[in-house]
């Protein structure tokens, strides 16, 4: 591996770290934008002055915002995310197991969605403007318009209630056998797959079509290669960089889709944890979970950038 590519990758990584710090400022500021008092909004209008004073002290609200930010940031960097206001539990411990559950669910969805999307994208290009292509883009239009919970509850209604094949509620716990766990996440993973599939497929199709317009594809056509061979041998290798990019961007999208899906299936993951504590106005938990989501999202975007650099010879050997 040559040195310019290492430099490029290092630049992206450094940029990512800077971005993460900026995002932590933004998330912290996002919970401070209320002109009034956070303590008041947490406890409501009926709170006694004593309770307000206690909570202010507990949150350190009497210090200026930047002091609180650096105290929080210092905690985050040393792995101490603070304690939840409502339950008093350590946030880092609660997040640990839940993050694992969420990544397992997202991973299951990705394992199915990625190959399927690429395959369907290839098919759409091979038979473009034919009935298969039309059907695929029609479905894509429909599914980008569907809210996540429509897909989720349709699956529950038919697969869990009418035909009783899979459980409607995905209970998972520590030490659960792998197969049982897999069965529990089938429906949420299927819902997530359907949420990202169409978008990923459409972008794959666009990426490959873009390559198909090159002169060397025309040459391959003129020398009489079969269309599927042209796509397999000439178009696909050159489309890998954009396709990897598409895949990574959609995995980032999947991380967000997880929030709603987890609530539908009462799945004990990060999304459920976040939503619960937003409702309870538990600011420390919301900040911590928001930061974790943002970090995963940014990380996947950086991986997409780096994959694009690695897969593209022109970027690998810049002039």
């Amino acid at each position, binding site marked *: 591996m040559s040195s310019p590519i290492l430099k490029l990758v290092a630049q992206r990584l450094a940029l990512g770290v800077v971005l993460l710090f900026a995002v932590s400022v933004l998330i912290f500021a996002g919970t401070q*934008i209320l002109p009034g008092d956070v303590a008041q909004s947490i406890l409501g209008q009926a709170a006694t002055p004593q309770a307000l004073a206690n909570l202010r002290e507990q949150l350190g609200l009497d210090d200026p915002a930047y002091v609180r930010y650096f105290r929080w940031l210092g905690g985050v960097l040393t792995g101490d995310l603070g304690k939840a206001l409502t339950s008093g539990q350590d946030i880092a411990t609660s997040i640990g197991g839940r993050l694992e559950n969420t990544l397992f669910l997202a991973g299951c969805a990705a394992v199915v969605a990625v190959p399927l999307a690429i395959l369907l994208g290839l098919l759409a290009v091979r038979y473009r403007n034919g009935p298969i292509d039309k059907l695929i883009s029609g479905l894509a239009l429909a599914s980008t318009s569907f809210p996540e919970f429509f897909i989720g509850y349709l699956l529950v209604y038919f697969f869990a209630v009418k035909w009783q094949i899979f459980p409607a509620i995905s209970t998972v716990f520590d030490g659960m056998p792998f197969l049982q766990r897999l069965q529990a996440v089938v429906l949420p993973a299927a819902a997530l797959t359907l949420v990202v599939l169409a978008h990923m497929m459409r972008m794959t199709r666009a990426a490959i079509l873009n390559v198909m317009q090159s002169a060397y594809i025309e040459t391959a056509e003129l020398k009489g290669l079969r269309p599927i061979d042209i796509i397999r041998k000439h178009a696909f290798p050159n489309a890998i960089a954009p396709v990897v990019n598409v895949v990574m961007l959609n995995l980032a999208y999947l991380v967000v889709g997880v929030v709603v899906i987890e*609530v539908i299936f009462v799945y004990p993951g990060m999304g459920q944890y976040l*939503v619960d504590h937003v409702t309870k106005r538990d600011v420390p938990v919301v900040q911590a979970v928001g930061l974790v989501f*943002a970090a995963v999202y940014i990380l996947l975007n950086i991986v997409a950038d780096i994959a694009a650099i690695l897969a593209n010879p022109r970027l690998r050997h810049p002039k």
Partner: protein
Amino acid sequence: MLDIKRIPTGAWIGLLVTGVFLICAVFAPWLAPHGNAEIVGGVWEPMSSTHLLGTDNIGRDLLSRMIYGARITIFIAVLATALSFSLGAILGFTAAVVGGWFDTGMSRLVDLLMSIPTLIFGLVVLSVLPSNVVTLILVMGVLDSTRVYRLSRAVAVDINVMDFVEAAKLRGEGMVWIIFREILPNALSPLISELGLRFIYAVLFLSALSFLGLGVQPPNADWGGMVKENKDGIVFGIPAALIPAAAIALLAISVNLVADWILNRTTDLKGGRGNG
């Protein structure tokens, strides 16, 4: 200019369905057979001639709730889209015209906002803000304006270097004139087709927030909130929650169809593909 016979079937369906939803939204109190919060029957009664869509989780007429829900959903989504468009477009155009530090500062800020998923940042902000409709519209509008900003800045940068803008600048026109009289009319067609997509996004975002219990608060409910109210029925085989969810999907698809058609039409005006 608009030849009715040349409107494709897809766009017709889209216009028709969107129109029906709009009529429901505007004339809700006259169209709904029952009041929004009126309890008229048992819990989760099936569809019948008295209650066309059945009743909901506490015995309210689902059809009436749906009609009022259309009003709330569309009202909030329209206002949020209007806010995101005016804010995003004006800031985007200004950034392109002024350039320099303003452009750099705004663009980096937008990049930063877009590096956090909208739903996640929305949830973070809503955890401290009071839950009411005004907050909801402001949060949705401001977060979504980042997308409009990107598009309008990109479009305006291209227009800003054209000769007629140069001429206007030499003529001594002020910035407001340049933005609203020179750039805006020429940037309108890409922005209008984006408008439909942003509206759909606003509907879906609002529904997701309400479904999570952070959007419109009871006893009022938009369609997302109605899904939340009725979701417990699903496990007993009662499909009441699927009806508002399907309505959201239907609205989004039909607006999509219309937006597609407008996109084709506006590219037509510039000598693009000729399909109505």
